């Protein structure tokens, strides 16, 4: 039987890739030698191009469209005629006196850390498209998500963990690397409604072989993979698999300990409300407390981008009951996370981002209605830590909360701002694909909201 000769052709692009990133041919030369764990790879910690204010992002993704007018954007009644606005009571909190609703009592105690963006707006009130745009900048096509872009721009800070972790996620496109090398794709933990209290990375441990022998085995696999790849150099997927094999291998050393929260003191578990899930209407049990605790632990371990998910905030009916449940599920864990990050000195370079794909129109008090729809014309995000002002409000909506009127921030501006805070020049962070340069902020580009920088 004939075996095909190996073609020696190597493209310029591949050569550049391999040499600049180091790993390319090292594996071949490492064929017969023991290799140290954590060798250099394409994920080396690259240097940021502008001074970075933040080193990592924790994105608290509130899917379904959280009702901003009953959480962070206070719209009291004005004039004689009742109009849509807030239906839950608000009061002022912290030294900054931010208005926060009674549904968020614990988060309210962290008011001086929050930077409210009350003038958010987006293009569409369709969940799927807006959710996609929030994550990727594009409404329709498969595009890399924010976490993938950040890891592409900065590389990883911990060789033994993925640079991008997505907890309790249901939509692969929200952690997709799309056309970016798939090594920048997020690693999901807890997918498709899996019980978050048990969620882990499957097969993260295996004691069937001593670790040194496992490494020796992987060296053989990678040598075979390099040979296989040598006549298929155009195929980025093969390179991505080679890298993911390395990362998977290295994760065995760090991840199991990180995912095991049993060594946390009971008081910490209680502050985060680990294991306390509320299930009511649209509010799904997500063990949000464990997610936030894991987020803190991943942040400490150097994961660049951590997405934490809760939903659904899409309370078309039973607005009051379901919104209350959603707030109750998330309020204390978020507060505990902010508190812990600050106490550990991590908040100053960890950017915490809270928000969903859009917001909701307000209810009119006392008119008996308890249902809301979607509103992409004006809604709220908040940021904390990572070089942004605390106890600050940027932007506003009109008196019924229907439209952003001042300090308008579009998703692409939010993306630009996050990238900028991470030390990446948002509109210059591009990737060439299908004949043109793509960027997260799209053809329009995003405006960095410098007013909120501390």
């Amino acid at each position, binding site marked *: *039987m004939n075996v095909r000769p190996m073609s020696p052709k190597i493209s310029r692009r591949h050569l550049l890739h391999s040499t600049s990133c180091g790993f390319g041919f090292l594996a071949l030369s490492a064929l017969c030698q023991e290799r140290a764990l954590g060798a250099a790879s394409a994920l080396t910690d690259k240097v940021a191009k502008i001074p970075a204010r933040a080193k990592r992002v924790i994105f608290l993704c509130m899917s379904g469209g959280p009702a901003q007018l009953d959480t962070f954007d206070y719209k009291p009644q004005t004039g004689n005629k009742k109009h849509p606005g807030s239906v839950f009571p608000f009061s002022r909190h912290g030294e900054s006196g931010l208005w926060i609703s009674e549904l968020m009592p614990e988060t309210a105690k962290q008011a001086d850390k929050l930077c409210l963006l009350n003038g958010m707006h987006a293009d569409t009130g369709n969940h799927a498209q807006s959710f996609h745009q929030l994550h990727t900048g594009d409404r329709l096509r498969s595009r890399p998500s924010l976490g993938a872009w950040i890891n592409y721009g900065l590389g990883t800070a911990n060789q033994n963990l993925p640079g991008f972790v997505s907890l309790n996620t249901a939509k692969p496109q929200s952690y997709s690397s799309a056309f970016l090398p798939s090594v920048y794709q997020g690693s999901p933990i807890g997918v498709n409604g899996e019980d978050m209290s048990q969620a882990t990375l499957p097969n993260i441990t295996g004691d069937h072989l001593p670790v040194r*022998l496992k490494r020796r085995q992987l060296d053989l696999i990678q040598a075979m993979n390099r040979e296989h790849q040598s006549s298929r150099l155009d195929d980025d997927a093969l390179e991505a698999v*080679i890298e993911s094999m390395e990362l998977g291998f290295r994760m065995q050393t760090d991840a199991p300990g990180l995912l095991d929260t049993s060594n946390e003191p009971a008081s910490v578990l209680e502050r985060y409300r680990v294991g306390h899930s509320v299930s009511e209407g649209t509010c799904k049990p997500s063990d949000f407390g464990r997610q936030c605790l894991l987020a803190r632990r991943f942040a400490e371990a150097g994961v660049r981008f951590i997405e934490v998910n809760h939903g659904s905030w899409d309370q078309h009916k039973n607005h009051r009951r379901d919104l209350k449940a959603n707030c109750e599920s998330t309020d204390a864990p978020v507060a505990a996370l902010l508190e812990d990050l600050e106490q550990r000195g991590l908040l100053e370079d960890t950017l915490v981002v809270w928000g969903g794909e859009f917001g909701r129109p307000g209810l009119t008090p006392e008119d008996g209605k308890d249902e809301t729809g979607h509103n992409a*014309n004006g809604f709220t995000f908040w940021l904390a830590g990572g070089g942004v002002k605390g106890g600050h409000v940027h932007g506003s909506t009109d008196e019924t909360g229907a439209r952003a009127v001042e300090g308008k921030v579009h998703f692409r501006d939010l993306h630009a701002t996050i990238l900028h805070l991470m030390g990446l020049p948002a509109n210059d962070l591009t990737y060439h694909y299908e004949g043109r340069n793509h960027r997260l902020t799209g053809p329009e580009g995003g405006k960095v909201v410098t007013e909120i920088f501390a």
Partner: protein
Amino acid sequence: MRWLFYPAGFLALTLPVPEAGAKDISPEDNAFFESRIRPALVKYCYECHSSESKKLGGKLLLDTGEDLRKGGESGAVLVAGKPDDSLLIQALRWEDNLEMPPKEQLPEPVIADFVKWVAMGAPDPRKKAEVPVAPPSITATSHWSFQPVKNPTPPETANDAWAFDPIDQFILAGIEAAGLAPAGDAPPETLVRRLYLDLTGLAPTFAQVAAFVEDHNTRGRGAVEALVDELLESPHFGERWGRHWLDVARFGESNGNDGLSRNATFPHAWRYRDYVIAAFNRDTPYVRFITEQIAGDLLPAADDAERDRNLVATGFLALGAKPAKAMNENFDMDVIDDQIAAVGSGILGISVACARCHDHKHDPIPTRDYYALAGIFQSTETLWGFAAHEKLTAPPTDLHVLKTPALIPPPPGFVETVVPTESDTGKAREIPKSTLPPGTPLAMGVRDRKEPADARINLKGESKKLGDQVPRGYLTACVMPGETVVEEKSSSGRLEFARWLTRDDHPLTARVMVNRIWLHLFGQGIVDTPDDFGVYGNDPSHPELLDYLATRFRNEEKWSMKGLIRTLVLSRTYQLDSIADESTIAKDPANQRYARHLRRRLDAEAIRDRILQASDELDPRPGEGSIIRHRDILVNKAGDLHEPSRHRSVFLCYLRNSPPPELAPFDLPDGTVVKGKREVSALPVQALFLLNSPFVVEQSRILARKLLLDSPADDQALASAAIRRVLAREPLDGETDRATSLVRDADVQLHDSHPDASLRREVAWAVYCQGLLASNEFRYID
């Protein structure tokens, strides 16, 4: 002219283009205006900018060319030939604080049409007298996928000796037009792997590869044809292609999380799986296949076996994931919505489901169409079974009682340990006694309600707020001559619906299926959004080829899926090498022109099957039933239900939200939505599966053990045998040395943990075998 395809209703409502106007502008310009610009003006602009508008915005009328030239209070809106200087375009682009339409920016392609139109000089046939009235769906009817399927003549190509089949002419014409040249033909040892895996999902053995290569050396394409025919006749064909359809059918053996964390088993769903596999193996014509799934219960049957088969087929409509009934007034409509979504995205390639609450913003599906379809399903009773005896989940229903399969009672001594509980107290509840003998063969499915009726529109999707009653019918965007309303009022109308779907002149049905089949053989679709042929979907890369194939599928292949698959794999395009020269790849990195074959990763099922093949543990017989066939329970209360199996992956238990652990890492669909194209990710969890999972570790050990039994002493021979067994090829230079070196190292490192020398030798060889199983060569198919 394009508007000839508009529905009769549109023609009646719209004045034809006045003669004078038509003379003023060229037919091409006129066609562009009529198909792209007028519909957009009607849909997006006339609400505020027409003489008919309730309140005129910005004193700007857009009713005629003259109006446009005149402009509004902001001045002129058009600079003909200069889109960038035209206020109209700036407004559509939402530049400089002028955002039109104000609520939501137009889709990019629509803006691009306006830009093009202005650049053309804004040719406008409309005169003063014309009344701009048209239904909103007219944009729709100009969308390519709603146009009748054409039968294009294969194009001429410069190289007229290359094509094996007219299909190749369409492809080659595109390759030539792009200034590319096709890659060489795949070497036989590549082609044989591709054919086995694509047609059966199983890899060829070393001997099968060798036999084909020899045959190919003797008789070339004759050998290919013979192998293709053999593989199409293999029962493994249906197991492979049936699984592809199960992705489309959002197949699952449990309900999946109902929103209240309850996940009830569907103990009889596996019968539908077996039906689908058998349908592919018996080559049921696609139109018949669809008809059985939508209206099998209404079809005549020659005997009990046929009757049972038809009933099981309707499981397609019953096995969707359902949200909890508790506190959910819309539950019945949720079930219908899943059915409409499965038929819409799965068969028609159109997402109809958004029209449940409002007129579909971009696709041409008005809410009335949705409820016309809903009436059909509302007149249908869905039988999902006992849904784990939970009234709050999907309350128990009847099931079809089958006549021909054997009665298989639970094994002696079987006692269900996962029992339903009272929701308030948590106390165990008694399982309701069935009136049927234990083990009675049952099937999920549908049947007609006794009193079929038209549905009423649920305002904003709320079942409590009812609007107009809508006569049962179909999608008005699919314009075909003949009836659009269900005539038969004494039945649900499902059979007529199936007949409508399977009409020869249906613009979507054949195109969508041809594209699905193409996708599985070529790694990407001609329309690469296989479940969405609507406005949001991708345009076809080869529209003529798509139509040619759809026509051929219908006329020549007589809707035979095997026939179409055979035709495609015998094309030269399919048989191209996946390795091409650098410039071809550089010019067409995404392989839009098919100048080479796309390398693909095996899917979850094929990876597991191939591992079991390598260890010679695969039981090639069909798996019988399901591990949950006697268990009406809540999966979430049961813990891990999966059991080791040696059957092919398609026979594992596809519980929603609790997928088989051996398949889960490799992008298995979740079974809640139609999934015509799986993701292909490269995640570290996959690496961890290959390196650490009990399954791969065990199969490696078994493989090592078997190899050692065959040739216990000779390490070089063992290495060669392992490579032949796993990769079905001869070792490369140095490859066996590399193996023996690893095994020697392993032996040293395992010395203390494994004092027994023969056991240690087995483990050491297992380390090597696992390496082969984890390699890219094993998982990727050229």
